């Protein structure tokens, strides 16, 4: 699915007008306006001076050498040297400045996209795979960057070169120039035809590549089945067929490319022949000078380069616009409602109360039906029930990750739906089931990159979470840089790290989604201790799986098929032969096994 999806995206044609894209992208590059202008000026300068070489050579041939004027030759050479020096220095800065503008602008765009994405509602993340988002932030912005650093430069430079060369040739010998001009139209037409032909071939190539990736992915996933049924040869054959197909398409594209190049080169040779033949005859008659002849020969080899560059950039531009469009699609998503900002931090005085919550992630299949519950300040409530029963959905609503279709949640008298999301969340310590580690040091991972939290605070929290010793095991201690996803910690240890994260903030309310994975007895013991430490003096809502955790709760709510089916203390619920007693037996039988 992944590959297929990306393929579709790659083929999206931009729908808007070029101006629209540039106008929306411009703000990201505007801060660097002075650099853009400077680079533009240098561009004009270099394009202009770049044409001077053949002119000076013409002068050297006709005037200096022609009249045996050694001093004149030296002067011409010095002018040439001077111009080239300016050209080189200007060229260097033009290139570097434009790169700077492009890189900075792209970085700003990436940053804006990233920050925007982080503020989007959870529902957006549910339907957009992380891989796709990464390529929006990374690859698409790079494609957009090319628009500013490459496309615009090439178009401007090539255009100027063509214009400049035309003028100089026209001035040197209008007759000869008109002769050369006759050659151009067929080539422009040929280019145009080529563009039309090569695009579908490239789409074919990309399709085959996607198909190849699909075979690789299917085969790797189905490797055991393929091997048991001895079908390796068949898949190898399929791969080989696809590779042959790709080869064929690539060959087609290559033939088209080379045909066009051949045409261009033929044009060059023809032009050369025309200039030297006809121009040479005129030169013999003394109607034009040898220097002019030389000038034309030099320019003809330079004439087709810019033409080719322009046609290349038209392709690049199409792709960049498609990327820009995808970028805007993300930027145009509405962020989750922030709520009314209040400066004063939230403190729970009485209770969190949910009333008649009805909630469906997709708006159709309700996972919570008429759920009401109250958690009083200081109370520890455990949510238990089977997977898919709705426990996590309750937590999702409490954290304001989603908005219920009906019903409301109040913290004391404040309605959660209008409450500032940061104000709510900063009062809550959230321990999710899956412990995510960010690239960076352990210290930063525990304080979650909040520099206002001191190292001492972090160490203290880690001690209380019973993970300090495991951390000091590493030679770098808290400065250990985590390898991929924190793979250097066991599952149990990662739970303890998550506890430490919550303890660092010392939140008033704790929401804990307990991990289901079983751990060794020693870690189990540490988790028990850490959990007690974590719950001390806090209002807590725990999605509980382990009996020991459930026993720590003041009250147990059984969430079953979207309802709160039972509630009471562990003992009360056990006495009543209902869902909880069955869940308990399930657990008990399982643990005994």
């Amino acid at each position, binding site marked *: 699915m992944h590959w297929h999806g990306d393929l579709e995206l790659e083929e999206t044609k931009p729908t808007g007008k070029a101006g629209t894209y540039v106008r929306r992208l411009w703000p990201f590059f505007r801060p660097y306006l002075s650099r853009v202008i400077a680079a533009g000026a240098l561009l004009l300068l270099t394009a202009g001076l770049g044409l001077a070489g053949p002119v000076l050579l013409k002068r050297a041939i006709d005037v200096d050498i022609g009249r045996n004027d050694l001093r004149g030759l030296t002067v011409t050479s010095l002018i040439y040297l001077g111009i080239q020096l300016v050209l080189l220095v200007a060229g260097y800065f033009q290139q570097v400045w434009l790169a700077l503008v492009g890189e900075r602008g792209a970085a700003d765009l990436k940053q804006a996209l990233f*920050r925007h994405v982080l503020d989007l509602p959870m529902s957006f993340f549910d339907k957009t795979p992380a891989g796709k988002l990464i390529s929006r932030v990374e690859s698409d912005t790079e494609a957009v960057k090319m628009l500013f650093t490459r496309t615009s430069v090439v178009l401007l430079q090539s255009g100027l070169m063509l214009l400049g060369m035309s003028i100089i040739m026209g001035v040197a010998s209008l007759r000869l120039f008109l002769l050369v001009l006759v050659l151009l139209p067929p080539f422009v037409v040929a280019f145009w035809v080529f563009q039309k032909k090569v695009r579908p071939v490239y789409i074919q190539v990309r399709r085959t590549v996607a198909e190849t990736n699909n075979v690789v992915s299917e085969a790797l996933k189905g490797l055991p089945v393929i091997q048991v049924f001895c079908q390796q040869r068949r898949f190898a054959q399929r791969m080989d067929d696809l590779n042959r197909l790709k080869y064929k398409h690539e060959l087609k594209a290559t033939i088209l490319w080379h045909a066009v190049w051949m045409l261009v080169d033929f044009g060059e040779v023809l032009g050369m022949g025309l200039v030297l033949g006809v121009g040479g005859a005129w030169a013999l008659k003394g109607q034009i000078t040898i220097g002019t002849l030389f000038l034309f020969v030099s320019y003809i080899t330079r004439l087709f380069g810019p033409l080719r560059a322009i046609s290349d950039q038209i392709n690049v531009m199409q792709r960049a616009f498609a990327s820009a469009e995808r970028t805007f699609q993300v930027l145009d998503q509405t962020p989750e409602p922030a709520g009314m900002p209040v400066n004063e931090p939230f403190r729970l005085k009485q209770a969190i109360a949910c009333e008649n919550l009805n909630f469906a992630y997709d708006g159709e299949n309700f996972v919570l039906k008429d759920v009401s519950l109250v958690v009083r300040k200081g109370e520890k409530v455990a949510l238990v029930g089977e997977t898919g029963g709705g426990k996590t959905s309750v937590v999702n609503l409490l*954290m304001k990750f989603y908005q219920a279709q009906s019903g409301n949640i109040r913290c004391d008298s404040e309605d959660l739906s209008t409450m500032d999301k940061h104000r709510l969340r900063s009062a809550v310590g959230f321990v999710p089931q899956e412990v995510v580690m960010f690239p960076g040091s352990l210290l930063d991972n525990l304080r979650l990159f909040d520099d206002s939290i001191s190292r001492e605070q972090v160490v203290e929290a880690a001690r209380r979470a019973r993970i300090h010793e495991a951390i000091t095991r590493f030679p770098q201690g808290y400065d250990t840089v985590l390898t991929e996803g924190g793979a250097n910690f066991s599952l149990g240890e990662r739970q303890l790290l998550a506890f430490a994260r919550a303890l660092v903030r010392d939140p008033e309310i704790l929401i804990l989604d307990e991990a289901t994975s079983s751990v060794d007895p020693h870690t189990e013991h540490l988790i028990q201790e850490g959990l007690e430490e974590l719950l001390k003096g806090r209002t807590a809502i725990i999605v509980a799986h382990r009996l020991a955790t459930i026993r720590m709760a003041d009250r147990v709510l059984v969430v079953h098929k979207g309802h709160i089916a039972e509630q009471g203390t562990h003992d009360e619920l056990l006495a009543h032969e209902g869902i909880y007693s069955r869940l308990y037996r399930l657990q008990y039988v399982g643990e005994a096994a």
Partner: protein
Amino acid sequence: MKDEVRMTNDEVRTQKGGSLRIVFDFWRERPGWAIGLIGGTIVVTAISMVFPYLLRMIIDGIKRGTTQPQLVRYVLYLVGFGFLRVVGEVLLPFSRGRINELYQWKVRSSVFRRVLDMGHTFSAKYPTGDVMERLDHDMGELSWFACSGLFRFAAAGFTVLFALIIMVRMNPFLTLITVLPIGLGVLVWVRLGPLVYSWFMKWRAKISEINNQLEAAFTGIRLVKSYSMEEEIGRKFRATLDERVGVAMGEARTEAKIHIMYMGIAEVATLLVLWVGGVQVVRAHLTLGQFVAFNAYILMLIGPMFDIGNLFVSGRRAQGAAERIDSLRQHPPEVLPPTRPLQPVSGELRLNRVSFSYGSRVVLADAELAFAPGRKVGIAGTVGSGKSTIFRLLFRTADPQQGSVTLSGQDVRQLDIDAYRKLFGYAPQEATLFSDTVKDNILFGRENVTDEQLRAVVAGAELAEDVAGFPKGLGEMLGERGTRLSGGQKERVAIARALVGRPPVVVLDDATSALDAETEKELVNRMINQLPGVTVIIVSHRLSVLSVCDWVYVLDAGKVKEQGKHDDLLAKQGLYWKLYQRQLITEELEKL
């Protein structure tokens, strides 16, 4: 974990230097092509040398005031050779490009063929995305180098050689003076080239750092939001972006320097021709035609000089790509074919005191299981009790570290692998279907299956109704671009595949989990009745299904804890009974 790291290091050590053999092997098999390309390169290079020479003749001719027909003749020569040159200069890169693609085709196919025989250690080491990346991007980089990179270098060498010879013969002094800056340029390039490479690597490292940050933020979005980390990780991201701008600018500056040098050298050389050559023309040591031709030869030299320098940069990058591709090829396979393969003889399948561990994690310890012909055997056990590993050993996609698997008393390691595996029909836990028709997914390579047999199998797997509902029936395309099946449909296609061709042993690894308890039991029951004489091995997370079995093994922590008939096991009130109780409660809860 540590073992893996060490292994990678060893790999790198053993492969260093020899990593480009994946390129040289290709050419060793095609010496004719290599010779042809070299020959073509020489001819084309030689032809391109003619152009400045003719230019010289024309200009000198005009200068001397030659006749019009003479001029026309030279111009026609020029156009003629020009066309020849164009044809050659297009055909040569075209042939190179074609061979690049061919190389990609052949090597990708051959590496993939090896991958298809790999087992679980390979899958653990190389995630799917990684393999795709290696077979796609790395392959692209390597294939360019394999032909274009190498032969462009050759072409550049010949151009430099030929042009130098001609220039020296025309005017050694001027040659020396004008070639000097180009030579100097090559020296600088040799110094800057590695710098470009190192900037490139730094840049790539920054990109992967950014990708890691993005991935962590997006997959951990719940945490980000719940701790209001948006600002903090936004700042961190900004800092990394700034570092990346720094690296990118380092690269841009180096590239700009090289670019400027490239232009500068061209211009200095032109300037030297202009001034020194001009003086010589004035002093009549050089004709005007020679002067112009010299200029043309100098311009001809500059590109190739950089192709030569570039070989070192692209060569190093290609080496990296080659290593990454070759390591897929060189991964040791799980099982080796016997040197003298025997044909399997149907009979009792046995696991004789087998032990197996993944690294330090022991999954089977001294397990003893027997599957007599025609028997229906169930396997039950807790999660991670070693069930899937038993299948790996049975199918010989892995060999036990201790003990043996035998068929009719013959160690399966002695048997012809394909012939042995063909004894099995297998429906895995997660129904694996491929982008193909329903029919091909069921037949999956089994030959000599009549339409009638196929229909029977489809009916047996209770798939007939679904197939009738597809617009193209059995010819319906499945997968990415085809019909998407429901979980239950997928499972039944996979079951049909396991049954087709009536293999002597059918393995159903929890293959019916998408069905509800009642339907599953009925389906398995009917299926078993249709398979007299066939050994059936069933794993199901619903133990009631195993009541149809003649014998049940109960696994716990890699050992056979209990065995017997379903009813007897229940009566024992041991592990099997406990597992059964758990399941009854789950079913009760489902109904509440």
